[in-house]
């Protein structure tokens, strides 16, 4: 039996997995009668968010009007509405810490490596685990070794991934999935030196906004060479 062990296994797997045409037909019927998909507008979570936004908007509009109504509050005299012009406050967020926006469409993201090389990342996220992606300017260093990555928090439900690539133009593939343990798997397919050797590279940084918050410890980054 052990001489042809693989063949024996193949035969057993085939024998053990017998299915009847009725089972298959039942699944086909199941596929034909799946519940209708609800559009974004009709999803309860979206409707709830819309209602909440409407309440907040109403409050924002109504409260200043209420306070300006004569007889309301401690000072009945009308207040001058004109405010001496002041310079507008500058945005507090540093340009080096971008907040990823869900407005950023997924697909192909151009990175911002220090060398200025044209590095595009094509994102394949079949399960919709991401809601946005943003390239972040990278330092002219190698923060990690080849085939390694740094994953850190970049917001309540965003992570910053730093890895290394060649300082040259390149098309990189990123596959996003979950593994059996529920970890987020980021699988990069890109050029790299052979595993045992060393090669000059530079940082590449990508900020990914996720559909749900995640602990960076639960993110697995893997690498592969292009076929």
């Amino acid at each position: 039996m052990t001489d042809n062990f693989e063949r024996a296994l193949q035969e057993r797997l085939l024998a053990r997995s017998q299915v009847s045409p009725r089972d298959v037909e039942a699944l086909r019927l199941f596929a034909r009668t799946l519940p209708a998909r609800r559009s974004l507008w009709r999803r309860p979570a979206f409707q709830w968010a819309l209602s909440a936004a409407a309440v907040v908007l109403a409050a924002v509009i109504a409260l200043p009007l209420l306070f300006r109504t004569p007889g309301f509050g401690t000072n009945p005299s009308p207040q001058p509405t004109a405010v001496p012009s002041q310079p507008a406050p500058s945005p507090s967020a540093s340009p080096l810490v971008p907040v990823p926006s869900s407005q950023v469409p997924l697909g192909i993201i151009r990175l911002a490596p220090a060398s200025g090389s044209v590095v595009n990342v094509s994102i394949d996220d079949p399960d919709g685990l991401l809601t946005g992606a943003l390239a972040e300017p990278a330092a002219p260093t190698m923060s990690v070794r080849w085939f390694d990555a740094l994953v850190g928090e970049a917001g309540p439900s965003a992570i910053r991934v730093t890895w290394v690539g060649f300082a040259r133009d390149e098309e990189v593939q990123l596959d996003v999935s979950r593994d059996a343990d529920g970890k987020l798997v980021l699988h990069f397919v890109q050029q790299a030196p052979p595993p045992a050797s060393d090669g000059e590279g530079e940082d590449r940084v990508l900020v990914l906004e996720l559909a749900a918050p995640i602990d960076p410890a639960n993110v697995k980054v893997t690498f592969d060479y292009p076929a």
Partner: protein
Amino acid sequence: MEAPVPEELVVAAKRGDREAFSYLVSPHLETALRVARVVAGSPDDGTDAVQDALLSAWQGIGSLREPAAFPAWFRRHVTRSAMKHAKRRGRGRVTELDIEAAAPSDALDRAFAVRELDRAFDRLSTDDRTLLTLRHLWDLPGAEIARHLGIPEGTVKSRVHAAMNRLRAAYEAEERR
């Protein structure tokens, strides 16, 4: 060689056409059910796993960018769903083969060998069972196995080899019992 996926069916399914979706998945259902039953560990769990995969594929088809990738994309849903069911079920539940029913007396040795192989296979981890099933039952290439399991393509061969060795060891342990 897989038949090309009619793009208009994917477009229709994305718009919510269940009939189109059913056409798309039909050629894959039998093998999906076979694989799910082996990975999940029981016919019922396998059926549940394929139903869950159908549901998740139906809900997620809007995110499928390349219609030609539909078969591999659907298989990935099936694999993940089957693994989820397998993990829920836990390992170590051995499906016993009915020797009396399975073999006439002259084939008893072979029937015992088959039972030992089944027991050994059922004692493997979910990851090992899935790897061996994707390779030897679904006959998937290394690149697709890597995508399903979220592992580097370069490690698929060595992982399959290691899983085979563990199966061999488990089989030999069964033989000694």
